[in-house]
């Protein structure tokens, strides 16, 4: 129902000053309902642009993106987004941030207060409801952002390097929390990252993108057979083989991206 299809999407970035840049060149990709797909690639390969196109924040100029068979035409509540910089409203408290989308939905007051409280508990922020984002750590901020996005019950979660600004320990904890949330209420996830291990650990499939102009270079199945989790899984042969394979693909592109800049 919430499957996603990119077909031959091209995008040219036009900076206010300077020459237009071809950011994406004929990207085609299908994401199944409730599948977790990571977009992996060197910085500047257009993977975030692809996510913003899917989000409807920038218009699709060439090619087509459909969600559940319908073409994307502007932002929509069924596609929730989480940004690397958290993008919380700094003048709103934790509670007010989470409430925002529910107010837009026109949900009754009692109901939305209850739902907000549930979400605060889901992301382990009980006791911080009345804190402002500036009073929270990076990990806590991202948990608020995830709760705010989950509040409106999107079918698809768009994540733009959501854990890229966090330290390694916090990131590992967030991975577990995200997987736990997904087990409870599965969603289709498109997850942008340049961290190979993160991609393999979280995703069912990893789409490796080439250096600019971005294309899908290879799609690697990363649904692992092992039942291990956490530290244990990271030690398995299966996990590390996938990481090695993807790392080689990404490294080639990163070198190409370097060359293109010089």
């Amino acid at each position: 129902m919430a499957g996603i299809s990119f077909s031959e999407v091209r995008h040219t970035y036009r900076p206010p000053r300077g020459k237009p840049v071809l950011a994406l060149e004929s990207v085609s990709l299908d994401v199944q309902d409730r599948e977790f797909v990571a977009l992996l690639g060197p910085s500047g390969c257009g993977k975030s642009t692809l996510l913003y196109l899917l989000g409807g924040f920038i218009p699709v100029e060439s090619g087509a993106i459909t969600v559940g068979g319908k073409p994307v035409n502007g932002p929509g509540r069924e596609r929730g987004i989480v940004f690397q910089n958290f993008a919380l409203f700094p003048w709103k408290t934790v509670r007010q941030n989470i409430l925002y989308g529910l107010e837009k939905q026109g949900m009754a007051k009692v109901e939305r207060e209850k739902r907000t409280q549930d979400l605060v508990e889901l992301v382990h922020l009980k006791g911080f409801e009345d804190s402002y984002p500036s009073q929270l750590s990076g990990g806590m901020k991202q948990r608020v952002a995830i709760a705010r996005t989950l509040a409106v019950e999107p079918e698809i979660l768009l994540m733009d390097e959501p854990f890229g600004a966090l330290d390694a320990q916090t990131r590992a904890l967030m991975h577990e929390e995200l997987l736990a949330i997904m087990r409870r209420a599965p969603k289709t996830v498109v997850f942008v990252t340049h961290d190979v291990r993160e991609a393999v650990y979280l995703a069912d499939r990893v789409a490796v993108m080439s250096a600019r102009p971005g294309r899908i270079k290879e799609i690697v199945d990363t649904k692992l057979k092992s039942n291990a989790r956490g530290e244990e899984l990271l030690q398995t042969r299966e996990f590390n083989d996938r990481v090695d394979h993807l790392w080689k693909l990404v490294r080639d592109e990163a070198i190409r991206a370097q060359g293109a800049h010089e």
Partner: protein
Amino acid sequence: MSRTLTLETAARRGSLIPLSTRLARALIRGLPLILVAAGWQIAPSVGLISPEALPPLSAVATAWWGLLMDGSLASNGVSSLWEVTAGLGLSIVVGIGAGVLMAWYAPVDAIVSPLMKSLYPMPKSALIPVMILWFGLGAGSKIASIFAGCLLPVVLSSYNGARGVDQSLVWSAMGLGASRRRVLWEVVIPGALPEIMAGIRNALAISFILMVAAEFLVGQNGLGYLISFLGDGGVYDAMFAGVLTVAAFGFFADRVYLLLMQRMLRWRE
């Protein structure tokens, strides 16, 4: 954790520091002012400066009391306050509207921006005679002058503030179901508020300059008028009392504004 936080806040506010230390600190902070006041009193009294050029502080204080009792401070102060409030208030409303719309809608920017840029370097006090010509000798011309002088700092800070609002905040709101118009009210303006409030603080200082300047030129009422009237009449102790009153007015207005600003932006930490 919350306990240490409270303690820190309390320490910052000074309630844990002994009273004697706090008094000593206040004295040290006030010392330069006390020295100036003492010099002001002594220099004219011993003939170091002519009392004509600088009447002793005690004489100024006596004259101030006289102005207070005969009601001239109240009546002129009220009209000055009204001009500043009206002129500044108008510039805030119009300025925020213009600045934010310029930042949000390219066509508005294209039309208004060149006007703003060409008016920017112009000293706004030069407009006072024009305003007198258009609005007459009453409060209208003074309000218009203050409005004209305060408008640009508010427009520019609103414009810059609105442009500086993070794209991801706007997109987050839209993704959560807000329309473009709601985003303007609920994200762009609150996001721009720190810059807008800093711009308004500049405008507040400018409003006092223009208020006094306009009242110098248009002799009917106001604290500026009182100063120039007393100066022309050679009543210098009272003239200085008027100058001090305007200075105190400006100082307290800024302090009150700062408190308001801290309160409204308390989320910033």
